[in-house]
């Protein structure tokens, strides 16, 4: 089976969960006999893998502009960028953003139409226009995987209508839609009116060989509560800070570490100062290898406002860290041994963080049971095998 796959990131070039997903997924897909040609935007980085043929859509003039091509860097986010001051769309990304998307899609169609394949598989909205065009040119079925919607990414505050229309069109044109949780499937049915029977859920997996504790010296005796994620509305970091404030009133010797960058970085730093906890909150920025943070964490929190899946929760568990996840996430439907809260319930989040810090039996029990659970968790092999079944379904 030959698959023409379209996506916008692949390790080592990655900014979020999709890169992690694609690496694990395509490697296993290839082991199961699928040949993959992958078209992505030009990154300027060399990518040589034996299990996948990667074509970087050349011709985009500057690397800097090309690297802005992630679905998270949409103009809408600019509205929340700096506190108080109105920032214009153009001042942050320029109108060039959509032109870049358009250009990538155009090149992807040009390149893709020469590829010999059985089906086309697109990941996330930026590749959907090309996917639709290629479906018509090649007369091959189109499978789309939806890793997150514009509604998720904006926390449903001013979703960009241009993006939602591209998402809707891609989902409607697809012969089969794959998404990563029942939570997300529900969103697609309710928000986009996609027929239920066309959507299949394939939950994500974890690579246990990679995600494990790494040796690292922890010099401070303070307990560490960890957040990992892009600093956008979607990831709910502000709730993490509100909870931190409450926790510090009861357990002062605690530190809050925030790994990730994003539009809200400045606002969040500002907020931590206003809350009077900035000496206890550490913004470390984006780091491609988060294992060292997991290795020193006592509690991991994923307070997402709307999270299609939430791979970081699995990563933390694999690194032996007790996990608190928001109920508004896909991962919460597949995990048993973790604590779950509504993202807006800051009091309850703080209650659970404090309990994990103050009641050692809870900490140990959760750590052990969640580690046992993750050892038996799905692997990328399962994900690949389930997708192949869906490929067969769409081809028959």
């Amino acid at each position: 089976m030959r698959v023409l796959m379209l996506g916008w990131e692949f390790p080592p070039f990655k900014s979020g969960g999709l890169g992690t997903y694609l690496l694990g997924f395509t490697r296993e897909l290839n082991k199961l006999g699928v040949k993959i040609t992958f078209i992505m935007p030009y990154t300027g980085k060399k990518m040589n893998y034996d299990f996948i043929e990667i074509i970087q859509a050349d011709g985009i003039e500057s690397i800097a502009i090309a690297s802005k091509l992630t679905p998270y860097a949409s103009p809408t986010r600019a509205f929340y960028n700096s506190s108080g001051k109105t920032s214009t769309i153009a001042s942050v990304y320029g109108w060039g953003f959509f032109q870049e998307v358009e250009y990538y899609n155009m090149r992807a169609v040009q390149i893709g139409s020469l590829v010999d394949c059985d089906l086309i598989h697109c990941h996330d909205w930026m590749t959907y226009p090309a996917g639709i065009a290629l479906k018509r040119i090649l007369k091959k079925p189109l499978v789309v995987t939806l890793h997150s919607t514009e509604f998720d990414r904006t926390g449903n505050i001013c979703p960009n209508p241009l993006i939602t229309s591209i998402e809707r069109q891609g989902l409607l044109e697809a012969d089969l839609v794959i998404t990563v949780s029942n939570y997300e499937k529900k969103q697609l049915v309710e928000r986009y009116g996609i027929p239920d029977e066309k959507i299949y859920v394939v939950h994500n997996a974890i690579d246990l060989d990679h995600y494990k504790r790494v040796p690292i010296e922890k010099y401070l005796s303070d307990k560490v509560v960890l957040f990992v994620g892009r600093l956008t509305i979607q990831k709910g970091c502000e709730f993490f800070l509100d909870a931190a404030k409450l926790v510090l009133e009861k357990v002062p010797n605690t530190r809050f570490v925030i790994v990730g960058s994003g539009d809200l970085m400045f606002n969040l730093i500002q907020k931590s100062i206003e809350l009077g906890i900035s000496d206890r909150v550490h913004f470390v920025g984006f780091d491609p290898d988060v294992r060292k943070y997991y290795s020193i964490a006592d509690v991991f929190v994923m307070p997402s406002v709307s999270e299609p899946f939430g791979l970081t929760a699995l990563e933390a568990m694999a690194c032996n860290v007790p996990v608190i996840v928001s109920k508004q996430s896909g991962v919460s439907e597949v995990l048993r041994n973790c604590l779950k809260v509504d993202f807006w319930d800051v009091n309850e989040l703080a209650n659970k963080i404090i309990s994990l810090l103050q009641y050692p039996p809870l900490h140990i029990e959760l750590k052990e049971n969640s580690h046992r659970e993750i050892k038996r968790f799905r692997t990328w092999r399962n994900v690949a095998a389930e997708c192949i079944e869906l490929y067969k379904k769409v081809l028959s």
Partner: protein
Amino acid sequence: MTELCFYFQVHQPLRIGKFTFFDIGSGKSYFDTERNKTYLARVAKKCYLPANKLLLDLISETDGAFKVNFSITGVLLEQLEAHFPNVIETFDELLNTKCCELFGETYYHSLAFLISEREFIEQIKLHKKALKSTFGIKPKIFRNTEAVYSNKIADVVSKLGFKAAVTEGTEKILGWRSPNYLYKAKDAPLVLLLRNYRLSDDIAFRFSERSWSEHPLTADKYAYWLANTPGDCINIFLDYETFGEHQWPETGIFEFMRHLPKEVMKHKHLRFSLASELIKKIKPRDELDVPELISWADIDRDLSAWLENRMQKHAFEEVKKIEKSVKKSKDEKLLHEWRLLQTSDHFYYMCTKWFADGDVHKYFNPYETPYDAYINYMNVLNDLKNRLSKA
């Protein structure tokens, strides 16, 4: 003659309400009165009232040949008196027929035996007092929480005047011997009635299980099994909520019970018995040595459903530790609430053993996970300790 001893355990805990770390010291009350009342209303409507009515009818239809035994916890009696006194009246009617017997137990449905002997005895006495004042009766048979039993327990309860105790007829204590005879406790003047778990669980668990080869279980078939079971007595011990809750009315559980006495009485050698009659009519055949605690729970028949993981052990140790200071405080409300926190259900909710499979422990469990159960419990206990330090 084979004596049939049907015994139903009647209990609903007083569940703890949401209590966060921030509530410690706030004076917020521990128990979720509304939620408990809602649960109780449901159980009363689905189980207690219709089942009591059915049993009363059966007693009168059979001219008293049908007999039944109960134990009702103090925690439940308290709640019924406050919200559903009509349920108590129906139990009273059953007792008035003289075809119904009540067993004694710990008032708080607790594992008080593991707190201290003194606390265990005090709770049994409290329960005795409650039975006296509510129903005017004095129990002769003892049933410990979840049928927990050992030689030591036999020693203590026999000294309190109990003639017999009920526990699980597990191979762990019986070996090759049958549960269908009376036994004698080791080194204590106490008779033991052992639960026939196969025949009991046929009703409690398998009744509505369609994959079971004997499904559907009919009254005549079950009576036939009873008639063909060798021994002096057959002890069928069930949670009373089996009727209408664990087994919904749609399963036909009430119809099964309605026809059972009639079908049983077709077999001339079968006879329904009150436990205190039974121990007069038949003699123990052997002595049972039970050095380790056993129970009727799960498949392990031990205390692991309540006291296995670290959270359960820690929570129990913490509640145990403060016995002396609670009693020294002479604060009646504090003492009562400390004891309410001993109710075994709180520890059951923290059980992680079956959590992975999402099994039986779900029933009326107010928590999403065992971890939530522990967090809430510890917050409440810390509040109680805080009050204690100020008392």
